């Protein structure tokens, strides 16, 4: 079980697990709950360059299509094939098996703390 308090967050309801110069990225349980049943996930290609704040993928549910924004500038090291094959992982384990991409970065931009994020969602 991931310690949610140790994660960083974005205002786009993504969580970021920083390990050295890599960032593991997923969407929060709050976002997954709001989206409802996730049916399709489109992730960037491994090796592609991503820019902070730009759309790099899609998370489609039965209610809407959410966009995945890159939280950092960098290069995609890995994309979660398991979640592409079983999109429901985003709902069942958003902070764990439902992770989306791993990005290598050189500089970490300012991100939200757990307290700042929970204040944002009001939960």
């Amino acid at each position, binding site marked *: 079980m991931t310690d949610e308090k140790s994660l960083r967050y974005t205002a786009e309801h993504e969580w970021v697990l920083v390990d050295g110069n890599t960032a593991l990225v997923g969407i929060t349980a709050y976002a997954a709950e709001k989206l409802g*049943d996730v*049916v*399709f996930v*489109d992730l960037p290609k491994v090796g592609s360059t991503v820019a902070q704040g730009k759309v790099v993928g899609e998370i*489609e*549910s*039965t*209610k*809407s*299509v959410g966009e995945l924004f890159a939280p950092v500038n960098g290069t995609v090291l890995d994309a979660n094939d398991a979640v592409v094959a079983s*999109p*429901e992982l985003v709902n069942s384990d958003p902070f764990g098996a439902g992770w989306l991409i791993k990005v290598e970065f050189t500089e970490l931009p300012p991100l939200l703390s757990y307290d700042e994020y929970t204040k944002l969602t009001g939960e």
Partner: protein
Amino acid sequence: MPDHSLAGRFADRHIGTDAAAQATMLAAVGYDSVQALVEAAVPASIHVAPLADSTIPAAATERQALAELRALAVKNVVRRSMIGLGYYDTITPAVITRNVLENPSWYTAYTPYQPEISQGRLEALINFQTMVSDLTGMTTANASMLDEGTAVVEGMLLARRASDVSSNVFIVDADAFPQTKALLANRAGAVGITLVESSLDGTLPEAFGIFVQYPGASGRVWDPSSVIAAAHEQGGLAVVAADLLAMTLFTPPGELGADVAVGTTQRFGVPMGFGGPHAGYLAVKAGLERQLPGRLVGVSQDADGHAAYRLSLQVREQHIRREKATSNICTAQVLLAVMASMYAVYHGPDGLRRIARQVAGRARQLVTGLSTLGLAVESDYYFDTVRVRVLGEAHSVVARARLSNVNLHLVDADTVGVSVDETTELVDLQAVLAAFAAQPLSTAVIEALSRAELPTFPPELGRTTEYLTHPVFTTHRSETAMMRYLKYLADKDYALDRGMIPLGSCTMKLNSATEMEAVTWPEFAGIHPFAPEADVTGYLELIEQLQAWLAEVTGYDSVSLQPNAGSQGELAGLLAIRGYHLANGNVQRTVCLIPSSAHGTNAASAVLSGMTVVVVATNDLGNVDLDDLRAKIALHADTLAALMITYPSTHGVYEHEVRAITDAVHDVGGQVYVDGANLNALLGYARFGDFGGDVSHLNLHKTFCIPHGGGGPGVGPVAAKAHLAPYLPGHPMAQRALHAGAPVSAAPYGSPSILPISWAYVRMMGTDGLKAATGAAVLAANYVAVRLRDHYPVLYAGDNGLVAHECILDLRPLKEATGIDNNDVAKRLIDYGFHAPTMSFPVSGTLMVEPTESEDLAEIDRFIDAMIAIKVEADAVAAGRWPADDNPLGNAPHTAESVVVGEWRHAYSRQDAVYPFASLIRHKYWPPVRRIDNAYGDRNLVCSCPPVDAFAD
């Protein structure tokens, strides 16, 4: 003396509530008369007085209207059409005409948003998708497009989204249909795409996509696979328009490497109708499914695990994604797609192949005859169309053919085009050859026709793969089997012939039998869209009358009937605004203000018109927030192109301040687009053009009685003030140049064969009848609001606490209190024998009810009683009498099987489940499936006919 004038009044048949019923309803609402009610609801500042010099004649009876339509029809001349260019004469099997086109069970149904009560047409549409994907060799086809021209445009836009190439160039086959080229030019220009026309035989420039017509407009058949491969090498996508009948004989686009296949299914038994309506198609290879525009039917499963159909990938449509949607198109051409799919079901793969061989054989005979006359055709290989070089003689040849009752295609002064089809007989070929020969044919030529043995297409392009192998395409060969299959499907569906469809914003009013009568008359059905003007004077007279009538009732100066859906009317209106600003040198005016409450199509259309969407807030009353509007106008004063506003609003309310809103936009040089979706609440009481509208689209399939066809056809005319009129859509091949703008539809007048419906409606209602219909519609909505207000809060109201022609019931408090949501209520209504109102539009968690003027009081009361009974059931759940996870609402709808099979283990009775009202025992609609799992279908996308054993128990 009996009052004969009243006995013949169509308005009394169209309007469901009579004087006595209206008196009862007025008493409930608290008004003395319908006039007083509507005048209290519509702000006084926009009321209009009756016109002294109306162009709309006094109401005709049904018999008189048909006689006048007959008089118009006989002014059209039905000749043998051999013009081609994507429109071919075809034989509609009579069993399909009678059981589909003329059957209200098919034509009065709505778009299948409630899949549990739409399984019949969903199956027909999945047959359509299977037919298209099989014949084109593609992986997934959608449930139809508006026409071939718009399908090509959508293919281009799809390629733009899906290609990584940065170039903005799209390459267009020089041998494409001329109407397709005109449409592409108009649509590409608005979104910054550069078109490069190419004969496709040299080096291609870098491009995100390429368009190939296969076979070409000239009839040429060739192998485009190396051109497609070259486009792929550069990272571009290939869009191929393929003739479906030819694909029964040729290698299909999917096997040539195409990414997208598009086209029309018109020649599969759908009459030409002077241009439409017909079902276009669009299909993609694997991996592009989520880029598909329009509707897509998929297979999922219901609560009992049975296979069931539903619309897939709905969330990618404009009502959810707004300006990020894959397309602005909401409408499909369901009725026509059903007809085309049934043509394939009727003929099967062998029958289609036989028809294609017969067509190719006629073409071969024609070429043989021409060569006997010493005339050569332009291409070595062809299917059904050839071009003949006749130096300087083309006009004479075409004129001579007309004397023999045949219309040929005048390509230029030296070239004549001839297309054959499944109706072409030997005697037609003889007439054509005689026109070329300029003299009676010699016996040598006639004898040569029977010896024609030339190959017509390159052997390497012969089709080697099977198609239409699913049993549905081989098991309905006898007419008895066909008739019963159509009945079996229709019986699964809920259409207006069963009961009320109170869908808010959809205006499911009567589509009367008299209005429908002329659609199938040969003088309207059998006309090619590019027939000479002299052949279509009846049509043009009808069109010009209807345009004048529509302009008068909306307060505009000019109307174009060309857009074949509301979304296309919006696009045409916004493109007119764009054209106007450009002509005035205001290139910077690209901002489009759209209230947050607007239909998502508004935003999607604005983007496709090259505009940037800026959202205006809505206040607590559901009206445009005037402060926010003024702030946004001030911020974008120099760049403001337009405001799009719906009136009455999407919340079903007459906004009091509409005049202040339109004035504020005009003050800074912006234009006002009034979305006419809710015109049914206004006719006779107020006009868009009078309260500040510059341009609007109307939905003839709402206000003017064209049936919804189960999800199309639609007709979305665009109406404008004089200053925008020059920019309304025209057409390079229009018989009369009524407007000068670029086209938005493949045919000059859109879908003319269904215009007699709206013509007849206006003709039989007269201005008094139209006004009476508005009054009855507004009264019905206010009556529903008053009677349900104590059970469900009514979300918005305007002046004097009144709604317009629809009302929004807020189910969020119910969910809060009981856990029962609007979806549960919608599905439970099925058990009570009703189609649900509109769900979660324009406000999430609500139901929007629009009874229309055509329902009678007994039916409206029945609906109200059902809604009240459902509230009582929800309260029982809240009170703990039924468990939250086992109650008739959460488990709705109930099939017969679900209450019969096995031991009954629910907390409620079988009677509660299926007969909540005793009246249902004698008259019950049984849904064929239980609640359908949306997530399952979108995770496991299957969009062609499932194997028969999927339905085994």
